[in-house]
């Protein structure tokens, strides 16, 4: 099983098309820096992106440098995955 310890999901509300475009630029970076859970669609809709722990600093710096506000939707993905797995095991028992 892949481990997602420290990975976070950031929620971004883009102010305008320009900011959406800057978010789309993130998708094309190599190696992949973000996994869009909700892709950049329109300013009225949130953008959710999973950021690997190793990329968190760069991505947050990128957002800050373009004045793109973000909040942390999921602080550590692996914690939720462990809870999910435990719940499945318990249910099976």
């Amino acid at each position, binding site marked *: 099983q892949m481990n*997602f310890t420290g990975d976070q999901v950031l929620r971004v509300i883009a102010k305008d098309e320009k900011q959406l475009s800057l978010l789309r630029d993130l998708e094309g970076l190599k190696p992949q820096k973000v*996994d869009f*859970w909700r892709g950049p669609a329109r300013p009225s809709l949130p953008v959710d992106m999973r950021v690997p722990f190793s990329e968190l600093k760069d991505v947050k710096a990128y957002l800050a440098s373009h004045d793109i506000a973000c909040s942390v939707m999921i602080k550590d993905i692996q914690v939720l*995955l462990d809870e*999910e797995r435990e719940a499945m095991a318990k*249910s099976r028992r």
Partner: protein
Amino acid sequence: LERSTNSFSYSSYHTLEEIYSWIDNLVTENSNTVSKIHIGSSFENRSIIVLKFSTGGSNRSAIWIDTGIHSREWITHATGIWLAKKIVSEYGKDHALTKILKAMDIFLEIVTNPDGFAFTHSMNRLWRKNKSSRPGIFCIGVDLNRNWKSGFGGNGSNKNPCSDTYQGPSPQSEPEVLAIVNFISGHGNFKALISIHSYSQMIMFPYGYSLEPVPNHDELYSLAKDAVNALYKVHGIKYIFGSISTTLYTASGIMVDWAYDNGIKYAFSFELRDTGHYGFLLPAAQIIPTAEETWMAIQTIMKHALNHPY
């Protein structure tokens, strides 16, 4: 494995094996109304199974519901399981459902992407695509909701095999898509199609590949509004609604556009809840409330299809 669908836990997530075993139990326990149809095999040669709910007749007009086309969206498979149990439990009791099943058949594909779903349990919980691989292509998997013929390769899909929205080498190149195309085209009498995804709390209709409104846009808009209202009444969860391209984004090669372009006038795509905090990792405690509200929206669409034959 569970011996009966009554002792099965509908408020938990399950593995592919548990779901397929549950399907066999459901069919065994309700053989007069439910049958299991093998419509094809996935890239890794797993069975692709559709449940048929029918009270008789032959080639009746039909309703298609699918869940799990994107494998990490576990809430959708769990909702599909709950829906199937609801249908067999409520037939003969729920007046609206009984009327629908006396005139139409319902087909439900719970695990539309079995290889990807198995992979989310074994290796990568956040995997979205199927598991197809081709010589010379470095990355694995095609987005099964970008591989349909309508609008294939347009904006909102990706030619890059490493992208999560990779469209595939050609329309219907993926066995999981071709199986559905062949089944629905072969049946020839589907009147409504509901493809269930997560997440972002939306009920949408074609087109995704074009901003052009479909001919019966106003009817679909009004029906989506009724469905959203019916859903909201259950647990107060707010959805937005509209055509895919104007509500969410341009998406090409998607199932509901293919369905609409192939004569299914009532084609909808659901994006289930996450309540703003969990994304694809919705806790199991929210499975049943999610399924209950989704059921009311689905019933609204099925009733409309029943009352507006074409």
